[in-house]
C-alpha cells in the first residue's frame, strides 16, 4: 500500500523579468508618469503579453512514493523546491503538471502558529485550527485533553493567545497539528524555532507517530535531526530529485558537498572585522594541527581556531577567548591563560587547539573576543560574534546508532572485563 505518491510533478512560477529603471528623470518625471496613462499601459502589457515574464521551475518532474509509517526527509539548499513541494502536497499551491495522490487526512505544519488568532483563547484557537484543516469537531473533542497536555497549558486553556509566551504558542501549535489524527504529516522546518527541549519533544513525537503508521514528510536544515529520525531522505536540487535513499547516506553525502562548497566560496571564517582604536580582529579560521585551513572538523583529530588580529597601539597586552555554541546552547568558553605583551603595532595570530574526541557531530558557531589591556586594567574588548561556523563529522566506524550527539561528546576512558562465565544448569 502506498500512502503518498508524487508523479512527474512540476511547478512553474511565472515571474516578471527584472526591468531596467524606465527613466531617470527624477521626481518630476515620476510624478508625470503617475499622472499619465503609463501605469495603465504597463498593466495592460503585463496582462496581455508574455515578453516580460520568465518561467521559474520550482519543481521539475519530481516523482516518488512513500509507504505508510515512513519518515521521509527532504533536504537541499534554499530554493531547491522543498517548501514548494510541501505546499503542493498540502494544496496551497496548484501544480503546473503532474499529479499527487494519497490516502487519508493531510495536516501540514508549514509554519507553527499560522492561522492562530491572538484575540481568541487557546480553546477557541484549537477549534479554529481544526476547522482550517477541515477536521470535524468530534475529532477535536476526543483529542482535546491530549492537545492541552502535550502543550503543557492546562492552566491557560481560556487565556487569550496574546498573553502566551512564544514557547507556549509554539507548543500549542505543534500539539494541535500532531493530534489531528493525520495520516500524512508535512512539517517544514519546525525545528528552527523553540528551545532545545521543545525541539527534542517534537522530534520524539514525530518519530513516535511514524511508528504508528503515520507518514511524515519532514523538511529541515538540521542534518542531525534529519539523520536521526528519517528512514529515507530525498535530496532536492534545482527542483529535481538529486538523490533518494537511505537517510544516513544521503545526509552525509549532502553535508560533504555543501561544506566543500562553503569552503570554496570562502563564506565561513570571515565575517567583517571588529575594530576599535587599539586594534581589530582581522580573520578567524578553522585549521588543522599543521595549519591547513578547513571548513569542517573531524572529531577524531585535533583542530585549531586561528584568530588573526591587528594592534594599533604598542603599549597593550592581549588576551583572547572563544565561546562555542551549538543548538542555542553556550557550550564552553576557553580563555587564554597568559597575557600576551604586544611589543609593536603588528598582526598577530593566536591559536586555540580543540582536542580530539571532545566535540559532538553537529554544527558549532564561535564568538571571538580579544581583550586589549592598557596600563593597570583598562580593558578594550574586540568582539566578533559568529566569527566562525563549522560542522563536525565523526570517523566512519563511529557512525551508526551510537553517533556522537549532545553539545559535546567526549570519549572518556572506558574499560570492559569479563567477570565470570555463565554457568548453564
Amino acid at each position, binding site marked *: 500500500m502506498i500512502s503518498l505518491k508524487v508523479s512527474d510533478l512540476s511547478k512553474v512560477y511565472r515571474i516578471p523579468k527584472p526591468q531596467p529603471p524606465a527613466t531617470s528623470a527624477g521626481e518630476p518625471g515620476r510624478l508625470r508618469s503617475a499622472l499619465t496613462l503609463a501605469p495603465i499601459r504597463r498593466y495592460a502589457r503585463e496582462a496581455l503579453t508574455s515578453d516580460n515574464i520568465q518561467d521559474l521551475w520550482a519543481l521539475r518532474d519530481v516523482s516518488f512514493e512513500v509507504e505508510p509509517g515512513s519518515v521521509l526527509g527532504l533536504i537541499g539548499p534554499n530554493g531547491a523546491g522543498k517548501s514548494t513541494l510541501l505546499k503542493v502536497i498540502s494544496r496551497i499551491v496548484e501544480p503546473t503538471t503532474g499529479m499527487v495522490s494519497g490516502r487519508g487526512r493531510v495536516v501540514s505544519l508549514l509554519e507553527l502558529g499560522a492561522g492562530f488568532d491572538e484575540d481568541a483563547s487557546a480553546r477557541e484557537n484549537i477549534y479554529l485550527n481544526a476547522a482550517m484543516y477541515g477536521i470535524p469537531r468530534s475529532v477535536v473533542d476526543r483529542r482535546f485533553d491530549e492537545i492541552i497536555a502535550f502543550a503543557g497549558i492546562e492552566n491557560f486553556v481560556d487565556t487569550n493567545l496574546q498573553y502566551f509566551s512564544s514557547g507556549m504558542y509554539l507548543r500549542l501549535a505543534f500539539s494541535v497539528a500532531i493530534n489531528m489524527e493525520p*495520516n500524512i504529516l508535512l512539517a517544514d522546518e519546525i525545528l528552527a524555532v523553540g528551545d532545545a527541549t521543545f525541539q527534542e519533544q517534537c522530534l520524539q513525537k514525530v518519530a513516535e507517530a511514524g511508528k504508528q503508521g503515520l507518514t511524515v514528510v519532514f523538511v529541515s536544515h538540521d542534518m542531525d535531526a534529519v539523520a536521526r529520525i528519517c528512514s529515507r531522505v530525498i535530496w532536492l536540487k534545482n527542483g529535481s530529485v538529486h538523490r533518494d535513499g537511505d537517510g544516513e547516506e544521503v545526509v552525509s553525502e549532502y553535508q560533504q558537498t555543501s561544506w566543500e562548497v562553503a569552503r570554496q566560496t570562502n563564506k565561513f571564517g570571515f565575517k567583517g572585522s571588529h575594530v576599535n582604536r587599539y586594534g581589530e580582529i582581522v580573520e578567524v579560521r578553522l585549521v588543522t594541527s599543521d595549519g591547513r585551513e578547513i571548513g569542517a572538523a573531524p572529531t577524531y583529530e585535533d583542530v585549531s581556531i586561528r584568530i588573526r588580529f591587528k594592534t594599533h597601539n604598542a603599549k597593550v597586552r592581549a588576551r583572547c577567548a572563544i565561546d562555542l555554541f551549538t543548538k542555542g546552547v553556550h557550550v564552553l568558553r576557553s580563555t587564554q591563560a597568559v597575557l600576551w605583551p604586544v611589543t609593536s603595532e603588528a598582526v598577530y595570530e593566536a591559536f586555540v587547539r580543540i582536542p580530539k574526541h571532545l566535540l559532538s557531530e553537529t554544527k558549532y558557531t564561535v564568538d571571538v573576543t580579544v581583550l586589549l589591556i592598557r596600563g593597570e586594567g583598562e580593558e578594550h574588548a574586540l568582539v566578533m560574534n559568529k566569527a566562525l561556523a563549522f560542522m563536525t563529522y565523526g570517523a566512519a566506524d563511529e557512525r551508526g546508532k551510537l553517533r556522537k550527539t549532545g553539545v559535546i561528546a567526549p570519549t572518556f576512558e572506558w574499560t570492559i572485563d569479563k567477570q565470570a562465565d555463565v554457568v548453564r544448569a
Partner: protein
Amino acid sequence: MSSEREAALAGEPVPTMASDAEPWIIQPKTGTLGEKLRELWRYRYLWWYFAAENLKSQYRKTTLGWFWMLMRIASTVGLSSIVFGGVLAAPSDGPPYFLFFVAGTATWTLFERSLLFVTRSLERNRKLVTKVYFPRMILPLAATGTGIAFFVITLVVMVGAIGYFRWTRGVWYVVFGPRLIVALLAAVAALFMAVSVGLWTSVLQLRWRDVRQSLRYAMPFWFYLTPIIYPMSHIPEKYHWFVRLNPMSSIVEAFKWGTIGTGSLHPQSLVISSFVMTAVFLGGVWFFSRAEAQSIDKL
C-alpha cells in the same frame, strides 16, 4: 520495526488508517462545481469564524462597538432624510420619507458594505492563504458577515421607525403577509449580488490595489443610479429600461414593495435582473477558480 509498519508493508490496513483513509488526488485545474460546494460545506465552521473576525476587526478596542455601528447607520439615514426629504422635498410615494429612505437603503447597505469587504477579503488574509489550505471561496463568502450585521441594524432602525409612526400617526406603514417573503428574497439577492461582483473584485484586488479605491468612488454613482432617494415612479418612462439593467434597482424596489408597500413588482425587470446576476455570478465563479491558483503564486 513495529508491528504496524510490518502490517503496512504486508499490504494490510494499518489501524490508524482504517476508518477515514479516503484516497485523494491533486492535479492541475481539477474539481467540479459539486466537489467545490461539498468542500465548502465541510469547512462551514470557518465561515462563522471569518465573518466574526471581520466584524470584530472593525470596532476592535472600542468599548461601544455595536453602538458605533448603529450610530453610523442612524446618522447617515437621519441626515439624508432631512436633506432629501425635508430640505429638497423629494417624493416618497406615500409613507414618511424617513421610512421610505430606510427601506431603500437597507438592501443597498447590505450590498455595498458586503461588496467592499468581499473585495478586500483575499488581500486581508493573504498571509494565511499562503500558509494554510482551505477553500478560498470561504473568504469572500464570509466577508459578507459585516454587511449582514449592518443590514440587521438597519432593520432594527426600520422597525423602530414603523413603531414610532404607528404610535404618533396610528398608521401601520408595513404590509404584513406573504409580501414579506419577497422582501427577504430581495435581501438574499442583494447578498448574492455582492458575492457575484466580489468574486471578480477580490481576485483583481490582489494584484491591483486600485480596485478597491476605484470601487469606493464608483459606489456613490451606483447609489444615485438606483432608485433609493427617489421612487421609480419619478423616472421618465423611456429611461426605465436603462435603470432596470441595474439589478440593484429591482432588488431595492422589491424590498420596498415587500415591506412598506410602495412601488410595484415589475416582472420584466425581475427577469432581466436575475439574468444579469446569474451571468455575473457564474462568470465570477469561473474567474475566481481560474485566477485563484495564479494569484496565490504571485503573493
